[in-house]
């Protein structure tokens, strides 16, 4: 993208929780582009930043990280981006390092490592207002002088203070190209670094960058060797010898880097920082309540309940407006196309229906990300993970899996999008895999129809509730072992240690929260939206064609005296029966026969792969009740109760036996019947591989369990 544009690129890096995103939003004024780095699920955010004198640069917001020794995909992206190893990105012309002014020492470690990259640097000491409140005095000029004249700017991005100075400093850094002085390594360590550099150069024929050499020497695992094409056997001997040299200098090779950098920084900061005592005081007091053994979980449950209620119930209102709007649009458009029934059906059911299908998810996404934004930016998300971690760690997930899984009970889409808050790639993937198992609100109409038509009338309302609750647990029951097996045996990625900073509490900035809501919604519409639209059109076509007018004429001729609605419903049913979908349903019915599904249910099951709630209206059509049937339709319930097998060994017995309805509900609880979920899973896992695995796994599991339930219950009953 940026490679095609002339002009200069500046990267924004920093530790997490430094207010980096707030600064980025302030510098770019929300003129941003969001994309993904190729091959990894790391968001690439960039925007145009004015350097105060009219010159513009492209500012790239890189993921937050503590150290350059990469252990997660996010961190790897930062290193690759800064060293110019990303396929589509040029190496930046300068780096802005955002630093938490209340914890200069730790934040400068990253800056000190970055000094090895040989790039012009600007240091932004953000949250300077908080530091001042804590009584910390920072001599920015002295720090700048000790760092060879690198611009050092004090800011408060939250309050919008110092932003203009940052713009000027970026311009200055690009003009003067002042580098931060590199670390002075002890002589033996310097020698060891030179040995590694010579070893690389001898084997691959070109001199490696200084930062790459350091990663090779100091990190126990690094992908740098692979990237350079330095093969392992030769690498090992050179690095072993170099590390022995570091040992002779008196350092453990794997600890040398932080020890030497921190020693340098301690000297660097003498006289720069004064005062500041109880730096964790205010947050510690809040934590005494929010992380209290008793009150902590109570407050947590309250917040999560509020969030769930908002996503589940509050979102229903805008969702009804959207579906109302879609219906209205259909009713307006349909008459204008009355002369062309095929085009009418394509436009109303296919296209308008297709747009409506993904727009309906927006309210839930926006509301969930309102909460996620507030929880993240306030610092509570880390606490929530702290409280919940124990419940998730044993099956390979972590405390941050809770919010995605909980929102999965309302809808899998926002749940999947919120897995981005999980840093550990393994836990993130396992959580994304588990989310579609949660009993979302689209499964509710299926359970409601079956319970209202059969369980309630036959066994009483008590059993109705038991089955309802039970069905909501089925998914969870399978999701947990799935996550366990996935993280334990399938994913061979090294697990990340769950080292999580509990940052200082902060008031979230409304602009940042709203911006995050908007970005997530926009990305969903532009990526998953197109796929969802396409799926809707395809399924429309499959259930519309072929459309032989003889079918309709025959039915109308056969029942001249009947009421028009009855005949219309019969016509529709007949059309669906001879459509590609209907023919396919009849053809594959033998596969679903062991679950006790007749061809009408089979067509319903197949038609509801893009969206599972479609089963109710499809059953309405195939059972000749008419389109638009809902779960509480007494007519549909009666027709289903009366339905009998008309052929085969079960002839004359009810189709919807207890075994069959339980099997149907279990099938819907487990099956991957949601096009948007599959599309979002592909978006969030960076390819179709895991989306396909999830689809086939869930569908196969659903079929197996439906067979088990049908065969088991029909033998018992």
């Amino acid at each position, binding site marked *: 993208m940026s490679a095609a544009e002339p002009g200069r690129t500046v990267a924004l890096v920093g530790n997490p929780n430094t207010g980096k995103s707030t600064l980025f939003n302030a510098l770019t004024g929300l003129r941003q582009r969001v994309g993904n780095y190729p091959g990894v699920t790391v968001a690439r955010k960039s925007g145009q930043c004015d350097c105060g004198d009219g010159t513009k640069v492209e500012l790239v917001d890189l993921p937050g990280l503590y*150290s350059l020794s990469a252990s997660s995909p996010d961190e790897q992206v930062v290193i690759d981006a800064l060293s110019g190893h990303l396929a589509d990105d040029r190496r930046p012309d300068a780096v802005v390092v955002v630093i938490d002014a209340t914890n200069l020492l*730790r934040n400068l470690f990253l800056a000190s490592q970055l000094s090895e990259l040989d790039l012009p640097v600007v240091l932004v000491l953000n949250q300077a207002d908080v530091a001042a409140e804590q009584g910390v005095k920072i001599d920015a000029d002295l720090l700048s002088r000790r760092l060879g004249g690198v611009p050092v700017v004090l800011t408060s991005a939250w309050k919008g203070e110092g932003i203009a100075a940052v713009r000027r400093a970026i311009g200055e850094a690009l003009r003067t190209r002042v580098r931060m002085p590199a670390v002075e390594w002890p002589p033996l360590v310097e020698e060891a670094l030179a040995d590694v550099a010579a070893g690389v150069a001898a084997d691959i024929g070109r001199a490696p960058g200084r930062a790459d050499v350091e990663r090779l020497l100091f990190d126990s695992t690094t992908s740098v060797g692979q990237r350079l094409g330095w093969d392992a056997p030769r690498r090992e001997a050179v690095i072993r010898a170099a590390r022995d040299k570091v040992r002779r200098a008196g350092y453990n090779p794997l600890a040398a880097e932080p*020890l030497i950098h921190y020693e340098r920084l301690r000297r660097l900061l003498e006289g720069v920082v004064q005062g500041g005592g109880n730096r964790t005081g205010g947050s*510690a007091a809040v934590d005494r309540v929010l992380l209290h053994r008793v009150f902590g979980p109570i407050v947590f449950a309250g917040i999560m309940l509020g969030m769930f209620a908002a996503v589940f119930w509050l979102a229903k209102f805008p969702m009804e407006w959207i579906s109302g709007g879609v219906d209205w649009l259909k009713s307006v458009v349909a008459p204008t196309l009355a002369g062309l029934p095929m085009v009418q059906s394509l436009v109303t059911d296919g296209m308008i229906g297709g747009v409506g299908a993904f727009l309906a998810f927006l309210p839930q996404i926006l509301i969930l990300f309102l909460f996620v934004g507030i929880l993240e930016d306030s610092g509570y998300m880390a606490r929530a993970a*702290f*409280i919940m*971690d124990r419940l998730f*760690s044993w099956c390979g997930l972590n405390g941050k899996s809770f919010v995605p899984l909980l929102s999965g009970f309302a809808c899998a889409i926002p749940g999947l999008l919120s897995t981005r808050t999980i840093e550990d790639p393994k836990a993130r993937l396992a959580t994304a895999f588990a989310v579609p198992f949660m009993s979302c609100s689209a499964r509710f109409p299926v359970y409601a129809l079956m319970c209202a038509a059969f369980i309630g009338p036959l066994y009483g309302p008590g059993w109705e509730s038991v089955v309802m609750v039970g069905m909501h647990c089925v998914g969870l029951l399978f999701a947990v072992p799935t996550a366990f097996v996935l993280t334990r045996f399938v994913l061979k990625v090294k697990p990340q240690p769950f080292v999580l900073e509990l940052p200082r509490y902060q008031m979230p900035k409304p602009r940042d929260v709203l911006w995050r809501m908007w970005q997530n919604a926009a990305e969903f519409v532009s990526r998953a939206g197109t796929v969802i639209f396409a799926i809707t059109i395809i399924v429309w076509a499959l259930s519309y064609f072929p459309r032989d007018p003889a079918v309709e004429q025959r039915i109308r001729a056969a029942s001249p005296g009947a009421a028009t609605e009855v005949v219309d419903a019969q016509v529709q049913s007949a059309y669906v029966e001879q459509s590609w979908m209907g023919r396919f349903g009849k053809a594959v019915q033998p596969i679903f026969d062991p679950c006790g599904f007749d061809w009408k249910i089979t067509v319903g099951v197949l038609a509801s792969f893009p969206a599972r709630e479609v089963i109710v209206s499809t059953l309405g059509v195939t059972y000749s009740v008419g389109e638009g049937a809902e779960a509480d339709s007494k007519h549909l319930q009666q027709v289903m109760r009366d339905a009998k097998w008309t052929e085969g060994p079960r002839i004359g017995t009810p189709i919807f036996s207890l075994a069959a309805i339980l099997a149907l509900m279990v099938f819907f609880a487990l099956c991957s019947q949601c096009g948007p979920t599959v599309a979002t899973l592909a978006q969030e896992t960076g390819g179709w591989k895991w989306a396909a695995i999830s689809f086939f796994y869930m569908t196969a599991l659903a079929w197996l369990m439906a067979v088990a339930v049908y065969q088991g219950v029909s033998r018992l009953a």
Partner: protein
Amino acid sequence: MTPLSQLLPGQYGKLASLNPERSVDQRLMALGLLPGMVLKLVRKAPLGDPLAIEFAGQVVSLRLTEAQNILIDVAADCPIQRPRPPA
């Protein structure tokens, strides 16, 4: 020396040793936890795991299993001391 996982909430002491081979310890070192530094076990999570530790003006959470091999010299003046087992 006491493993960090066996500290009582409120107890503090000097970091005696960590193992740079382990990725947890590498992370902690990047955060500025170096041998000789004072750290305090602030609290345990309501379910007993993970732990919240404080060092260099920041609070960091880590799991019990990750804290087992981090050894602490509990400060003699620390008001909270594990009761000695009866002789």
